[in-house]
């Protein structure tokens, strides 16, 4: 039956930032289908210009309370690569450990508090807490553990203060790490219950092949550094990130669109899962089996499922890193001293929402001359729209309400941080 559907969702809820979904179908033919980004452009790059490189990670970690460690990490890696700074093994382990903390914190927030309400047919986590208080309390408990993990290493709960170029200005004690290890072991019960809950949810059925882009490493499931790898066969050095992102402006969005070999690509937990499945912790692979997700998974709704897999992986790997640090003992290390020679460097890591790039040019005075940041959600925008265009004709006959719900769930599955992705104009520095 030919259908007319006109959808104009003003401000999709339960995503970070403001985006509108616009769909217009007449007599069963899709005429218009897009995700408008209406946030005011943020000028992160302009905020960094002229500031000492030592401030960059603190400034960028303020972009967002959810990806604070991720932005700090990408920022520090950009400065470290620009200045030729090598990290000690201890610093690497601590960087990894705090990253697991943020991954857990963000994935618990998204899976339980932003996505789960859709399956319980409630508007937000607040009524969900009335229906399923045990699940929400579990989520808060897991968030608390993740936040405390970030705090013992980063020196503060929300925005890390102890992470610096070359290492850390404050170190956790072995006793703190032992206590954290014990809490992570205890949390396995919550993690198991998380897998049990999410495997029961009826995920929407929708498949669309696309290109998946993530960092990869030969010896581990990559979160920090690595080679940019795509499921279409591309492998790039971090310095060549622009060959992958190919940012371009589009009329209806203040977020740029990205495309590599196809018209769009996807980044995030599902992309990491598809690219790096082999390197998942064995318990995470077991969870993937239980959750019914296999590479290469082409259902974008399963991004949330891949996040659940990463919750298992991050918990198990965090325990391993705690073990390594406890066995080595914590040693005070010399702080990096700037030698008066600047440079250019790219830093990249897999923040919860996908691959993030920071690219800095640092002058010989230690101040940032030029900066570029490419945020995961910006890279996903074109892919979200391509999914919407493929999905709508499949569900058009279900009526306006169901189409609307399906599209909102789709956008939320990407865990978009719309406010973060918005930096419409590249600032030209004269």
């Amino acid at each position, binding site marked *: 039956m030919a259908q007319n559907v006109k959808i104009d969702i003003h401000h999709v809820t339960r995503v970070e930032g*403001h985006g509108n979904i616009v769909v217009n179908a007449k007599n069963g033919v899709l005429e218009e289908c897009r995700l408008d980004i209406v946030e*005011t*452009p*943020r*000028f*992160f790059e302009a*905020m960094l210009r002229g500031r000492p490189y030592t*401030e960059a990670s*603190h*400034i960028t970690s*303020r*972009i*967002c*309370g*959810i990806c*604070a460690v991720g932005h700090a990490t990408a920022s520090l890696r950009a400065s470290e690569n620009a200045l030729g700074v090598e990290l000690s093994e201890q610093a690497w382990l601590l960087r990894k450990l705090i990253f697991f903390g943020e991954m857990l*914190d963000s994935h618990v*927030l998204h899976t339980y*508090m932003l996505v789960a309400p859709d399956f319980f047919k409630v508007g*937000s*986590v*607040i*009524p969900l*807490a*009335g229906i399923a*208080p045990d699940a*929400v*309390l579990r989520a*808060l408990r897991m*968030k*608390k553990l993740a*936040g*405390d993990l970030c*705090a*013992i290493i980063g*020196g*503060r*709960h*929300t*925005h890390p*203060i*102890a992470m*610096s170029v070359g290492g850390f*200005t*404050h170190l956790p004690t072995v006793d*703190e790490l032992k206590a954290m290890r014990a809490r992570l072991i205890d949390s396995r019960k919550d993690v198991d219950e998380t897998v049990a809950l999410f495997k029961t949810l009826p995920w929407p059925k929708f498949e669309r092949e696309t290109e998946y882009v993530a960092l990869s490493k030969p010896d581990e499931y990559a979160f920090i550094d690595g080679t940019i790898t795509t499921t279409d066969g591309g492998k790039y050095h971090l310095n060549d990130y622009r060959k992958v992102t190919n940012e371009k402006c589009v009329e209806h969005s203040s977020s740029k669109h990205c495309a590599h070999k196809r018209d769009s690509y996807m980044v995030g937990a599902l992309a990491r899962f598809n690219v790096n499945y082999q390197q998942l912790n064995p318990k995470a692979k077991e969870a993937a089996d239980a959750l019914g997700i296999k590479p290469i998974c082409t259902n974008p709704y399963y991004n949330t499922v891949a996040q659940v897999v990463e919750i298992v992986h991050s918990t198990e790997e965090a325990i391993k890193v705690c073990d390594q640090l406890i066995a080595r003992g914590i040693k005070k290390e010399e702080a990096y001293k700037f030698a008066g020679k600047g440079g250019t460097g790219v830093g990249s890591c897999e923040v919860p929402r996908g691959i993030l790039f920071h690219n800095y040019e640092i002058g010989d005075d230690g101040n940032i001359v030029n900066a570029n940041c490419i945020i995961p959600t910006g890279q996903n925008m074109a892919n979200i729209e391509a999914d919407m265009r493929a999905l709508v004709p499949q569900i058009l006959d279900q009526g306006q309400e169901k189409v609307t719900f399906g599209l909102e769930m789709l956008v939320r599955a990407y865990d978009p941080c719309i406010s973060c992705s918005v930096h419409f104009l590249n600032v030209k520095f004269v």
Partner: protein
Amino acid sequence: MKKDRSTRKFSSRRAVEFGIWDLGFMIGMKPILILGLGNLLQGDDGVGCRVVEELGEATCQAPLPDEVEVMDGGTPGVGLLNLLDGRKRVILVDAAEMGIAPGEFRRFAPQEITLTGSRERFSLHRSGVADALALANELRIELPEIVFFGIQPASVEWRDSLSLSVHAAVPRVVEAVLNEVRLVQPWHLRSRQGK
């Protein structure tokens, strides 16, 4: 665009020097928390963080009671509940859209106001206070006694400095927050000596 450098501080070193290193929970959690909230990159939304930073300087001259910890909470979202956990009393400092003149501030308790989540109407949305408190209420989580110091912003557009009117208000808010912990708490008499 020329910016006022005096309001552009992102210094972790200062935080350490002035003893507001946020590690209270490791060395035994202090019962009273002064928590600055907001986004430092969104103009006046970051006023809570600025107040906390200035508080660090002010308390170099006259230290706070030992029971008080000062923390820059940034934008914790519902993670706010974890920051409140285990405290007896929390003083929240944040930008608040109250329809009064920019830079004016008010002290109030949660029960005296209605927190709305609308971005345009209430910048507390950004730091998640409304959602976090509503969630705690739904889950019947016992919260500490909470006092707000809400400061009326002039602008929460993307920029890394405060507007002039809100910048000028910071010392007055610092003074009011100090009075709150010193006057209300009798144990201030036992605080460390300071110059």
